[in-house]
């Protein structure tokens, strides 16, 4: 089984927080948290004969996230790294990823992705990629298991759990996963440094300039606004628990109306 693992490097928002609603640039980066779930799932599915190939598009620093995938069990990696890819929106990104897959790894069985990236928060690339490749997709998953050549994927949807059975040539996007954090060993680090990491430029996958980067994008972020809570809080000064409970109940009842 060949699994393609699509990952993204994002700013480490857990350490930096936001700047007026905008994602800060220039600080440290990490593997996108939802891509971590996809990585965990891919490695858990991988048998001895199988191959997990990590793919990321991004600046040179994105190789750090691919290194993490390789440390934790991916077999090799592609890094789509070219100034011509800069400024890609979701459409241009999906198109570039699809072209790499068609050109280099068209014999894949499954594609695993994080549902969305912590910086852009669009959640559209997985679906667009599946459409461009003409394959079925399940979004918002939290669990995958393998049964021979088939995968079973679970997701929560409108208060119920859905289970899908997928044959080869399908895409699964992970919303959550296992919370146990994995740490590579120095042996894993050394092994990862010796695994194959191929840097791919636009020309390597015969992509026109007009199909990628800013030129191939249909959307541009013009501004970001922070929405603030407009409803004011209420201060209650009360002496005993019983009247406090009554007052809170009354305040909630009034607000519901």
């Amino acid at each position, binding site marked *: 089984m060949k699994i393609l693992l699509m990952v993204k490097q994002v700013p480490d928002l857990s*350490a930096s927080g936001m700047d007026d609603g905008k994602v800060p640039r220039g600080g440290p980066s*990490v593997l996108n948290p939802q891509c971590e779930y996809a990585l965990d799932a891919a490695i858990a599915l991988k048998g001895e004969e199988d191959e997990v190939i990590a793919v990321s598009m991004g600046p040179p620093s994105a190789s750090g996230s691919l290194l993490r995938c390789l440390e934790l069990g991916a077999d090799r990696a592609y890094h789509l790294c070219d100034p011509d890819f800069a400024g890609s929106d979701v459409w241009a990104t999906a198109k570039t990823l699809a072209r790499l897959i068609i050109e280099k790894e068209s014999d894949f069985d499954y594609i695993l992705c994080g549902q969305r990236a912590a910086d852009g928060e669009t959640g559209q690339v997985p679906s667009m990629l599946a459409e461009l490749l003409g394959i079925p997709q399940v979004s918002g998953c939290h669990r995958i298991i393998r049964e021979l050549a088939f995968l079973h994927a679970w997701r929560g949807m409108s208060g119920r759990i859905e289970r899908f059975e997928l044959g080869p040539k399908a895409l699964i996007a992970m919303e959550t996963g296992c919370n146990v954090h994995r740490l*590579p*060993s120095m042996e894993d*680090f050394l092994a990862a440094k010796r695994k194959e990491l191929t840097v791919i430029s636009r020309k390597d996958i015969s992509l026109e300039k007009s199909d990628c980067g800013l030129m191939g994008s249909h959307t541009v972020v013009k501004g970001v606004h922070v929405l603030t809570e407009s409803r004011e809080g209420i201060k209650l000064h009360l002496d005993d628990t019983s009247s406090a409970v009554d007052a809170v109940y009354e305040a909630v009842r009034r607000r519901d109306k």
Partner: protein
Amino acid sequence: MTRSRLVRERHEPDISRVKALDGNAVNAYLQDESKLTGSADMVFITSDEAGISSVLYHATAGNVPVTISARRTGVVGGAVPVGGWVLSLEEMDRVVGIGEDDVGFYMQVEPNVTLRQIDDILRNGRYRDLEEITPGAISRLKKMGRHLYPVDPTESNASLGANAACNSSGSRSYRHGPTRDWVRRLRVVLADGSVLDIRRGEVFAKNGAFILDGEGDERMIETLSYEFNREVKNSAGIFSADGMDAIDLFIGSEGILGVVSLLEIRLIPWRPMLSCMAFVPDDEGALRFIDHLKGLDDGPELIEFIDRNGIEMIECERKEGHLFSNMPEFPLFPAAAVMFDIPVDDSLEMLIEEIGSVLKSEGSGLDRTWCAHEERERERFRSFRHAIPEAVFSYIASRKLQYPDMHKMGTDISVPESSSSEMMKCYRDMVDSSGLRTVMFGHMGDNHPHLELLIQDMDDYEKAERLCHDLAEKAIGLGGCPSAEHGIGRLKRRYLGMMYDETQIQDMVRLKKQLDEKWVLNPGVLLESMR
């Protein structure tokens, strides 16, 4: 051209503009992380240097003791008041700006700025609200790439002013030295409310004295007669050296000579690191592994040790789900752990292989390690290490409910490299014969582990006091220091008498009186109060 003259400046004293608290409101200021509890009549909260000056001027005029307080993260009771006033610097938490000189970039900060704040600015390039202390400094810093303040005391909520006051160090001092080496400038408010502005390299002691000048009142400040022990990490006692820089008089003096109102700290270029944690079956093997790490060329930036008891304590916390519930299982258990950071450069792979063969000879291996290069992961290692003292603090706080007189007991001993093995043997032997429960962790790179005593009752407490005393005595005999980074504060004053003879202590008393005649500043901290 150097000089020995310190020029005093003065603010117009006006205490009415300083926020004051009394009654129950002072209760929040009576304890620090030592869990020692004090008392105070009033708390003054100032947001600027003029406020510090006004409070100290009136305290001296009215002969009222003043205890300086900021984040209260100290563990030796330095911020615990003994009556009188508390002067809280909690609102002086502004990072002022960035400057540049011949040596490199520096940052100007108010005393209550934390390590966490400056790390956030430097890590994320958040220079937007900062001033250019020298023209073009910020744009040049941006161009030069990420920088770092190299001192990293474990408590990242500690304030920079307090770090300077007790010459804090931390894991990275193994390579970079303590706070003293990184302070470029201090503004210090003296007990009479006057202010000194001292830049490193400008004012030096001449014939064993500084001249304190200003307001037509010139006096000599005689320095101390002893040579401060700089062979080991040392935060015990007032700094002294022949022809010393005036700035060093105040760094490490625990706020008894003056109150820091502004600092400038030096920055260095950041470089990528691989953080590693190796698990070794026993403490002795881990210590031998550390010796090997110390022998490497361009070796680790820091070397930290957690003994088997420490790892066991973490494992218990993890199993009970209090802390580390999302942490993977240890790759080796039971085990001691060694944390170290190595630079990511061309020789990294060769270095890892070498480390692997040493680990193998100790019954471990590269597969019995964790490592991280992404900063989020590296930060997790740091929190992991910090969780041990936090778990100890929380344990002592729980025992204190039953025994109110109990406070945290632990060592802060450093010894020279040549005595490290002997000292470690001493720890083992003395702990065994005391029958006390302990955990050991800390800065083995600097031969400075912390032994924390998990005391259960007042019997244990007395045993622990004896043990700490005996260990301190042994360390001093080996040329070490019983207070390497926490300072002396109120809790470790008796160690001063073990490190310094009576003449030397009287020398410190004389110096204190020259700058604070009425002994209003932090009385009972470092030196016994002469009030």
